[in-house]
């Protein structure tokens, strides 16, 4: 009976993952830049009425708005405070090193081309998480006084909450794995075939 090829795959993936994560974390500005830039375009494009600027530096994306934050009575009288939402893009982009580790562990052909393609395809999913994080802060966390200025209806706020949960809990991990499977379609048929051939080898030949 031959060795299970999944063990080798799992071992390679478990070894590649910390290396890919370390590189991604070290050069976070490079690897998170595209998703942060796209998120900025989306927020400015969809909400020109209250988004003033989107700034990206180091490991934080800041959404500067024109939404006024209520001041505590008696404190800073006459001054105006505006809402600035901040998000950590790394929370939504760690799927990239996971995707890279899977690709490198499966040892397939054209892996570098697929790595670039995968990194590009993942950007919308990463931007989803970043945008919904910023929207959740503005429409929900900041309170009703700020949310009222955005004009979001109750069902839109519910949708933002759902989009945020999806973008935080599901998309960062599912998107890279689904993408890896889609770009590596031979993996599962090969696994099944290998199992079938190994199963045949387990039986004694007919007399």
């Amino acid at each position: 009976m031959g060795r299970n090829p999944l063990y080798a795959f799992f071992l390679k993936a478990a070894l590649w993952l910390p290396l890919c994560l370390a590189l991604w974390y070290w050069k976070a500005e490079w690897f998170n830049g595209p998703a942060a830039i796209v998120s900025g375009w989306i927020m400015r494009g969809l909400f020109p009425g209250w988004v003033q600027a989107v700034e990206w530096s180091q490991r934080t994306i800041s959404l500067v708005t024109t939404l006024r934050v209520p001041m505590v009575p008696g404190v800073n009288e006459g001054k105006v405070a505006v809402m600035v939402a901040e998000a950590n893009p790394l929370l939504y982009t760690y799927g990239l090193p996971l995707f890279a580790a899977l690709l490198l562990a499966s040892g397939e052909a054209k892996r570098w081309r697929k790595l670039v393609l995968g990194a590009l395809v993942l950007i919308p999913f990463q931007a989803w998480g970043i945008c919904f994080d910023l929207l959740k802060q503005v429409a929900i966390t900041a309170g009703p006084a700020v949310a009222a200025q955005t004009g979001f209806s109750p069902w839109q706020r519910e949708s933002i909450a759902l989009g945020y949960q999806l973008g935080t809990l599901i998309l960062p991990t599912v998107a890279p794995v689904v993408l890896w499977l889609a770009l590596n379609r031979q993996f599962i048929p090969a696994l099944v075939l290998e199992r079938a051939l190994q199963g045949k080898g387990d039986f004694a030949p007919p007399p």
Partner: protein
Amino acid sequence: MLRFFLIFLVILSGLFAAELTPPGQAVVTPWTAILARLSVLAVSPFDPHVIAYGKVIQNPSSGFGVTIEAGCNAVEASIILIAAMLAFPAPWRHKVLGAAVGILAVQGVNVLRIISLFYLGQWRMDVFEFAHLYLWQALIMLDVLVVWLIWIRAMPMQSATPHGA
């Protein structure tokens, strides 16, 4: 493959939406508290002072504690695994057995995650942050993928044809 992905996404969306409803949370919240107790039970032979209350694990002497929030209870990881098993063409018996064993495997690794983070947090917060937010999240998904692939490979021979997947 496309059919598998579509069915997977439909089941995943349904289960995830169900998790967020009050009946779903009525299951998830007690489960998270059980997870905290299981983690304390696992460390009690070598660290008997650790306590659990609700979804919190705490070291009473240092005051340090971790709370198990959504995304750290591996409920979403289990949902992803169930959706992948249900979407893949396989006998129902194999799906049910796979989901039961698979959830155990994922939750078992998750207990390791909780324990490791509890001690990492007491050692160095920057390492805790990295492990909590990125490393363990990716490792749990890798665990889900490996369990799913092992399940596919363990499928009964006559049904182990990748049609439609």
